[in-house]
C-alpha cells in the first residue's frame, strides 16, 4: 500500500480502516524514520496530490517533530538532529519549495517546527534569507508571500527570542514589506501583521532607533485603518503589545495617533475591534501601575526612575469612563464562562483605571452609578453595580466610606434581583466591599440583611452561588479581624478570640456551605472550590464559642475524606480520578485549616484517624504516579502536596506526641523527599521536616541519618528544581536547632556545603536569578544561625567546647555576612538574617569577636536595617546592635 493511500485512509469514515492506516503510519515511522520523513516531504511538495493528502502529510511530519508534552518535544527535537545532514536538507528543501503551492499552508508549519529545533542548535543558518527573499521578491505569488510570512510568524511565536534578535533586521524587512498599505493582497497583509505581532519581543534594537521605530509605528497605525476587520484587529493587537513592551517610546505617537486610533476602536460596533481598543487601555493602566510602584521604590532608594509614567490613563479618564460604562451595559443575555468580549474587558479596564487614577475615578464614575442603580432595565442596573464594584480598589478607602454606606443597602437588596446577572454582580461586589472596608460591612445594621441575602444566594445558580461563596470568604476574615481588634490583645492567646459578630450564625452558615459543596451542579463555575474555600476561611477564622461546630465539621470532613478514598480505590478512568483528586485536595486543605484550630487536648482523640487518612492519601497517590498518566494535568494533582501540608499541621498540633507515628510515617516521608521531579511535593516534604524538628526536638535523632543523606543528594541533584535547594539548606538549621550537640556528626559536611553554596553566583541582570540568589543566601544564613544557636545551647552559659569546634568556620561566616552586606542586590530580608547571624556569633563568642564586628561594613549594615521597613530586619538589627553594645559596655566597665 502506498503512503498516499494510507494518508487518504487516515481520516476515513470507516473506523477499522482508519485504525489500520494510523498503525501503518506508526510502523513506518518506527521502522525507518528517515525514509518515512523523506516520503512525507515529497508527498507534501507534490502538487499533483490532493489537498487533503498533502495536509495529512504535513500533519504526520509535524507529529514526528512536535509534541505538546515538553519532555517528549525535547526528545523529538534531539532525534531530528541525529538524522543525517543530507536527509534533513532534502526534507527542508521540500518543505520550503512547498510554500506558496497550497491554499492553506501545512508547509509553513513544517518549516517552523524544523526551524524551532534547528536554529537554537546553530543550524539552518540561511533559512531567514530564503524566507525574506520569498517575501521581497516581486515575482513571488501572493500565496507564496502569505505562506512564508505565516512561517515567519510561527517561528517567532515558538522560539526563544534570543535566537532571533541577531536576525531582526531581515525579519522586520520581510514583515514590514508585507504589511505596507501598498500591498494589495489582504491575506498577505494579514499574515504579515500577525507575524509582526509575534516578532515584537526581539525587535527591541529596532525600536531603540528612532527612524526604524517611526517606520514600524507608521505601518502599524496605517494597518489599524484598514477596512478588513482581521487586519485591523491584528494591527490593534500589535499596538497593545507595543505599549506593553515599549511604553517609554510612545509619547510622540500617543498624542499624534494612538489615542485617536484606540478611542475610535473602543467605540466600534465591531466587537473584536472594540475589544482590542479596551485591551490597549487596560495595558496602559497596567504599565502605569507598575511604573508608579517602580517610581516609589526608586524614590525610597533615592534614585531617579529609569522610565517615568506619563499618566496617559489619568489624562484620558474623562474620555474613557463614558465609553467603558456604556460598554458595561452590553452584557450577553446568557453568560458563557469562556466568552471574552468588550463588556467583560471593560470591567477589567475600569478596575485597572481605578487602581491607576485613585481618588479621581470616584467622581467620574459615581454619576453613572447613581443614575442607573435603580434602573428599570437590568442591563443598566447591572452596569451600575458593576462599575461601583470596579472602583473600590484604588481610591483611598476612607474616601469611599460614606459612598459605600449609602450604596450597600441597595446592593444587598439586589442580591434578590430578578436578573441572575445582577444577582451575580451584586454578590461579587459585596465581596469587593468586604475586602476594601471590612469593618464597615460587619456592622449590625448591614450584617443581618446581608447574611440573609447571602445564605439565600448559596442556593441560587452555580455562578451566583460561587460569587456568594467568595463573599463569605471575605466576610469570615473581616468579622474575625474586627473581633481581634476589639478585644485588643489582652493575653498571649491573642490569636484566640472568644466570640464575634458571626457567632450566632456560624453553625447555619457552615452547614449551608457544606451543603453547597455537595450540590449537584457544584462542578460548574468552580462552585465546589469556592464553597470549600469559604468553609476553610470560616473555620480558620472561628472564635472559641464556635468550637463545637468546628469539632463537628472536622468529623464530617474526615468522614468525607474516608468515603472518597474508598471510592478512589475502585476508579478506573483518569477523568474521574482527576475530579476526585481535586475534591480530596480541597477536603485535605479543609482538614488542615481545622487542625490549626483544634485544642491540644482534643488533638490526640482524632490524631489516629487523621494520620490514617493522610497516609492513605500519600500512598494512594504514589501508586497512581507510577501508573502511566493519560495527561499532564492529572500528574500535577496537588493531593500529596496538600496531604503534606495537613501533616505539618498535625505535627504542629500534636507536638512531641507525634513521635508515635514516626515509624509508620518514615517510609512515606523518605519517598516524598525523594520525589525530585515533583517539585512541590519535595518542597513540602522538606518544609515538613522543619515542623518535625521543632515538634520532636532531640527525639528526631534516630531518623536524621537517613534523611540527611537524602538532603545532601537533593542539593547536588541536577534533576531537582532549583527552588527546592534553598529549602533544603534551611532544613539544616532545623536539624541543628533540634539536635543541638547531636548535630555534630553532620557538621563537617554541612559547613562545607554552606561555604560552597554561599559562593554561588548568578546572572544579576535577570531578576528571577537575583531572587533565587537572595533566597539561597537567606537559607545559608539561617542554616549558620541554626548551627551556632544549636551548638551554643539554650542554657545561660554557652557550650564552649562545641562552639570551639566550629571556630574555624567563624571567619568564613563573617566573610559571607560582609559579602551579603556589600552586595547591592541584597534585600532587607537577607540583610536582616545577616544581622541576626552576626548577633548570634557575638552572643556565642563574646568579646573575642568585637574587633572583627567593628568593621564598618557591619555597622553600615546594622544601621541600614535599623531603619528598614521590614520589621524582621529591623528587629534583628536592633537586637544585634544591643548585643554588641552590651559586650562593649561590659568591656569598658
Amino acid at each position: 500500500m502506498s503512503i498516499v493511500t494510507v494518508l487518504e485512509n487516515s481520516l476515513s469514515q470507516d473506523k477499522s480502516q482508519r485504525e489500520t492506516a494510523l498503525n501503518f503510519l506508526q510502523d513506518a515511522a518506527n521502522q525507518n524514520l528517515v525514509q518515512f520523513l523523506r516520503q512525507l516531504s515529497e508527498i507534501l511538495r507534490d502538487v499533483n496530490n490532493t489537498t487533503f493528502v498533502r495536509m495529512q502529510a504535513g500533519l504526520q511530519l509535524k507529529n514526528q517533530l512536535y509534541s505538546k508534552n515538553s519532555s517528549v518535544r525535547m526528545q523529538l527535537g534531539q532525534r531530528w538532529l541525529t538524522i543525517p545532514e543530507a536527509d534533513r536538507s532534502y526534507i527542508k528543501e521540500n518543505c520550503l519549495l512547498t510554500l506558496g503551492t497550497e491554499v492553506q499552508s501545512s508547509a509553513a508549519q513544517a518549516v517552523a517546527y524544523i526551524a524551532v529545533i534547528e536554529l537554537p542548535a546553530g543550524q539552518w543558518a540561511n533559512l531567514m534569507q530564503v524566507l525574506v527573499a520569498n517575501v521581497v521578491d516581486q515575482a513571488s505569488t501572493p500565496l507564496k508571500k502569505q505562506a512564508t510570512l505565516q512561517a515567519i510568524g510561527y517561528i517567532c511565536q515558538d522560539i526563544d527570542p534570543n535566537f532571533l534578535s541577531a536576525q531582526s533586521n531581515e525579519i522586520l524587512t520581510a514583515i514590514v514589506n508585507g504589511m505596507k498599505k501598498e500591498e494589495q493582497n489582504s491575506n498577505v497583509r494579514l499574515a504579515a501583521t500577525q507575524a509582526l505581532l509575534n516578532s515584537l519581543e526581539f525587535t527591541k534594537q529596532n525600536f531603540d532607533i528612532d527612524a526604524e521605530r517611526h517606520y514600524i509605528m507608521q505601518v502599524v497605525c496605517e494597518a489599524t485603518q484598514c477596512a478588513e476587520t482581521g487586519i485591523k484587529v491584528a494591527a490593534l493587537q500589535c499596538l497593545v503589545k507595543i505599549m506593553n513592551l515599549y511604553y517609554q517610546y510612545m509619547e510622540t505617537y500617543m498624542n499624534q495617533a494612538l489615542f485617536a486610533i484606540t478611542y475610535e476602536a473602543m467605540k466600534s460596533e465591531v466587537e473584536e475591534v472594540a475589544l482590542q481598543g479596551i485591551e490597549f487601555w487596560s495595558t496602559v493602566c497596567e504599565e502605569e501601575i507598575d511604573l508608579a510602584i517602580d517610581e516609589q521604590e526608586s524614590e525610597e532608594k533615592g534614585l531617579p526612575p529609569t522610565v517615568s509614567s506619563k499618566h496617559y490613563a489619568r489624562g484620558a479618564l474623562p474620555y474613557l469612563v463614558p465609553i467603558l460604562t456604556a460598554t458595561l451595559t452590553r452584557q450577553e443575555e446568557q453568560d458563557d464562562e469562556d466568552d471574552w468580549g468588550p463588556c467583560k474587558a471593560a470591567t477589567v479596564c475600569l478596575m485597572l483605571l481605578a487602581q491607576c487614577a485613585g481618588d479621581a475615578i470616584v467622581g467620574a464614575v459615581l454619576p453613572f452609578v447613581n443614575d442607573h442603580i435603580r434602573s428599570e432595565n437590568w442591563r443598566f442596573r447591572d452596569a451600575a453595580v458593576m462599575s461601583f464594584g470596579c472602583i473600590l480598589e484604588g481610591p483611598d478607602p476612607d474616601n469611599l466610606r460614606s459612598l459605600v454606606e449609602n450604596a450597600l443597602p441597595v446592593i444587598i437588596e439586589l442580591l434578590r434581583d430578578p436578573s441572575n446577572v445582577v444577582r451575580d454582580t451584586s454578590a461579587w461586589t459585596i465581596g469587593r466591599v468586604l475586602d476594601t472596608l471590612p469593618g464597615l460591612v460587619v456592622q449590625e445594621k448591614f450584617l443581618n440583611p446581608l447574611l440573609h441575602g447571602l445564605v439565600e444566594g448559596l442556593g441560587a445558580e452555580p455562578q451566583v452561588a460561587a460569587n456568594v461563596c467568595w463573599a463569605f470568604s471575605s466576610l469570615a476574615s473581616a468579622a474575625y479581624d474586627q473581633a481581634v481588634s476589639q478585644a485588643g490583645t489582652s493575653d498571649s492567646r491573642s490569636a484566640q478570640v472568644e466570640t464575634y459578630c458571626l457567632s450566632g450564625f456560624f453553625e447555619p452558615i457552615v452547614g449551608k456551605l457544606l451543603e453547597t459543596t455537595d450540590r449537584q451542579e457544584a462542578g460548574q463555575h468552580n462552585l465546589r472550590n469556592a464553597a470549600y474555600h469559604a468553609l476553610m476561611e470560616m473555620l480558620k477564622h472561628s472564635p472559641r464559642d464556635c468550637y463545637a461546630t468546628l469539632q463537628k465539621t472536622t468529623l464530617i470532613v474526615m468522614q468525607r475524606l474516608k468515603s472518597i478514598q474508598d471510592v478512589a480505590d475502585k476508579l478506573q478512568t483518569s477523568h474521574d480520578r482527576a475530579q476526585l483528586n481535586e475534591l480530596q485536595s480541597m477536603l485535605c486543605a479543609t482538614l488542615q485549616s481545622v487542625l490549626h484550630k483544634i485544642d491540644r487536648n482534643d488533638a490526640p482523640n482524632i490524631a489516629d484517624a487523621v494520620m490514617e487518612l493522610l497516609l492513605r492519601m500519600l500512598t494512594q497517590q504514589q501508586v497512581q504516579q507510577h501508573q502511566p498518566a493519560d495527561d499532564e494535568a492529572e500528574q500535577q494533582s496537588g493531593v500529596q502536596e496538600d496531604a503534606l501540608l495537613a501533616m505539618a499541621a498535625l505535627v504542629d498540633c500534636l507536638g512531641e506526641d507525634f513521635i508515635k507515628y514516626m515509624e509508620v510515617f518514615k517510609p512515606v516521608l523518605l519517598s516524598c523527599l525523594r520525589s525530585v521531579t515533583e517539585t512541590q511535593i519535595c518542597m513540602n516534604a522538606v518544609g515538613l521536616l522543619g515542623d518535625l524538628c521543632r515538634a520532636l526536638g532531640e527525639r528526631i535523632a534516630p531518623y536524621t541519618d537517613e534523611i540527611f543523606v537524602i538532603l545532601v543528594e537533593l542539593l547536588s541533584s541536577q534533576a531537582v528544581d532549583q527552588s527546592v535547594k534553598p529549602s533544603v539548606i534551611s532544613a539544616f538549621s532545623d536539624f541543628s536547632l533540634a539536635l543541638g550537640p547531636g548535630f555534630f556528626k553532620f557538621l563537617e559536611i554541612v559547613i562545607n556545603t554552606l561555604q560552597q553554596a554561599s559562593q554561588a553566583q548568578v546572572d544579576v541582570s535577570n531578576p528571577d536569578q537575583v531572587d533565587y540568589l537572595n533566597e539561597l543566601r537567606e537559607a545559608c544564613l539561617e542554616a549558620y544561625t541554626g548551627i551556632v544557636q544549636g551548638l551554643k545551647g539554650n542554657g545561660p552559659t554557652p557550650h564552649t567546647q562545641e562552639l570551639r569546634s566550629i571556630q574555624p568556620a567563624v571567619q568564613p561566616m563573617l566573610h559571607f555576612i560582609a559579602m551579603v552586606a556589600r552586595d547591592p542586590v541584597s534585600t532587607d530580608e537577607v540583610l536582616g538574617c545577616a544581622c541576626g547571624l552576626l548577633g548570634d556569633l557575638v552572643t556565642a563568642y563574646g568579646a573575642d569577636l568585637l574587633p572583627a564586628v567593628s568593621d564598618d561594613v557591619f555597622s553600615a549594615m546594622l544601621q541600614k536595617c535599623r531603619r528598614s521597613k521590614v520589621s524582621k530586619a529591623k528587629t534583628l538589627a536592633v537586637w544585634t546592635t544591643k548585643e554588641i553594645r552590651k559586650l562593649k559596655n561590659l568591656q569598658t566597665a
Partner: protein
Amino acid sequence: TVDSSETCQSMAENQTSINQSSPHPSDPDAVSDLCQSLAAANTRHAVPVSCAMDRHQSMYKNRGRAALDQVERRRKELELQKQRRFNAMSLARRLAEDDWTTKDVDENDDLDDDLVSVADTNETLATEELTADDTAESLQRKRRPGKNYRNQLMLSEWLMEIPDNLETEFLLKLCPQGKRVLVVAAKGITKTFDRRGRCIMTFPSELPGGCRQFRAGLTVLDCIWDTSSFHVLDIMHWRDLQLYDTETSLRFHWLETNFVESAPNVCRRTPKNRHPFLIVESHSCQRERLAEFLTLQPPFPLDGVLFYHQRGAYTFGHTSLVGWLKPYMLTEVLGLPCHQHYSIGLPADYQGWLVDVERFEATRRQMALAYSQDRQLRRQQQQTRSENSHSMVD
C-alpha cells in the same frame, strides 16, 4: 554523599580576612560542582505578552480566583513554616514576641544613646492610656501600648491533673492577692507594666537601675502588687545577669539568696525605695515537707497556689510548666490537710476541683463575651454619632 575529607583544610584556607575579600569571590577552583549546581538557576522566560488578555480574563469577577487561591493557600502555609522557624530562632535570641507583623512602636534610631536590653522605652508611648471609648479603627491608628512590655509575663494554666513527678520536679509558691505586674528598673527609674504592656506606675527603687543613685544595671521582676508592696514571684534580669533561660529552680534559688543580700533595702520603704519588694519563697513538693508547710498559716491573703516545673525557663504567656490551683482545692488535690485560711473562698456548692475549674472557665468565657459585646455596642454608638455628624453623600 558529599566528600568531606578536605573540609578542614578548605576551611582553613578560607580564613582570609574580611578586608581582603571581594564581594564576589572569583577563584574558579573554589567553585565546586555543587556551587555550580546551585547557581544554575532555571532560566525562566519573561511572561509572553500575548498572555495579557488571558491575564485580564482571569481578573474578571472571581473567575481566576479558585486557582489563584489554591496556590496562595499553599504558599501561605509554607510561609507559616518559615515563620515557625524564625520564631524558634527568635526564642533562642530571647526575642520571642508574638507579633512580628505590626510596625515597631519605637523608632530605634536613638539606639546610640543608652542601650540596655528590654529597658529601652519611649515613655510617652508606654504611658499612653487607652480609654474604653476607643473604637477599633482609632485603635489601629493609634499606636498600641508599649509593645515591648506586652506578653512579657509567664502565665500559668489550670492544673488539671497531678503530674507523676510532682514531688521531685515541681516547686510550690503561694500567690498573694493583687495585680500581676512586670517590674522593670532601668536608667534610674522603676516602672511597672500590666499584662497588656501598659505602664501603671513609675517610682524610684533601690533595685539595680531603679533610681537616680542606682542608674547602672537592669532589673526585671515578675510580681504581684497588693497596693502597698510588691511580692516577687520570679526574677528575669538582675544587673548584668540575664536569667530568662535559666532553669526555674536556679532562678528561685538566686532570688531567695542573692537578691536580698545584694540589695538589702529593697524590702523596706525608704525615700529611695518607695515600695517594698517582698520575696515569695518557693517550697519543695515532697509530700512530708508539703504536709508540714500547709498546716502553717499563709503569710498573706491567698489568690492561689502555683506549681512551677523546676527545669523550665522563663517563657512568655501561658505555659503548662506552671500549674495553678485555688487555695481551697489543695486539700482535695493533694490529699493533705491545710490551714483553715486555705479554705477561704470555698464555694458553698463546691463539687470538686475539676468541676470548679470548668465553672471558672465558663465565667471567663462569659466575661470575655460580655466584654466584646460591650465593645461592639460602644462602637455602634460611636458609629451612629459619627453618622449623624457626617453629611450624607448621595
